[in-house]
């Protein structure tokens, strides 16, 4: 099969064959956890299960939990040595995302509060 011939090019001397940690079980577990988190989010948003002023905070926590589930079970981010670069890049991305969103909300809230005509 010519596919196998082409695969040889993909191996580099001294590096073990890539072992996939992904399995059907891990995807299914991820799907189950994600569905639970989604249903929890929609329930919290539409009922008084949580103390109403705390609902946005609860929704953010559930969203972060679900993002974590997706990263681990679907994107297979983990603590393996070949994942170090991916984790560091993700950490930098998360830093920028929080600076942009948090900073914008903070600055504009401050401007609105100081606007005499508003």
């Amino acid at each position, binding site marked *: 099969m010519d*596919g196998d011939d082409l695969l040889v090019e993909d191996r*580099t001397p001294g590096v073990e064959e890539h072992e996939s940690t992904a399995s059907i079980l891990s*995807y299914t577990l991820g799907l189950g956890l994600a569905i639970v988190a989604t249903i929890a*989010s*929609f329930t919290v948003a539409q009922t008084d299960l949580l103390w109403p002023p705390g609902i946005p905070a609860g929704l953010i926590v559930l969203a972060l939990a679900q993002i974590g589930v997706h*990263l681990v079970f679907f994107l297979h981010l983990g603590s393996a040595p070949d994942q170090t670069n991916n984790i560091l*890049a993700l950490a930098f991305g998360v830093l920028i*995302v929080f600076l*942009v969103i948090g900073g914008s909300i903070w600055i504009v809230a401050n401007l609105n509060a100081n606007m005499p005509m508003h």
Partner: protein
Amino acid sequence: MTTTTIEAAANRAAHQREVGPAPKRIVVAYGFWIFILSDIVMFSALFAAYAVLAGNTAGGPTGADLFNIRNVFLMTMCLLVSSYTSGLGALSAEQRKPERFLIFAVPTFVLGAAFLALEISEFMGMVDKGAGPSRSAFLSAFFTLVGMHGAHVSAGLIWLVYMVAQVVAKGLHAAVLRRLLCFSLFWHALDIVWIGVMTLVYLMGIQ
């Protein structure tokens, strides 16, 4: 052979293992991961714009008036299960089972297309009610953010068709497998962005 020479040989082997270049698969996935993170940074700017403008409805309809939460729940489930089947497809491809990959590609595409159809009908319903993107700053930000996600989903669907064609025409050789890996990263990342949209725009919008 003395013990020291064996040890020296073992050390050399261990050293070589550490300094050898990473397999192309890992390098490609890393590069594409950087692209996805930069795409998410772009989305974060749109999220920030939405968060800042969400209250500026200019006397027009608010999120609570417009959003149909049952529709949003359906969209969320479509995208989530589509992400799941695309993962199973990627797994089948890694195990060199092209037929199973093609079988899983069908629900991935159908559910992605269903998501898009629900989103387009939501947008058209809003425009019909006079709540188009030009009505208020809130709606401009809403259509930009949610529309940008929808545009990514459309691009992902086109990419999926292209990948299916490649698997059929070329088989699962190394280069096609790397492209499939990138596609799966992209599709899973879109689902992660959707979690943000669903929470920040819809669930917080109806509070």
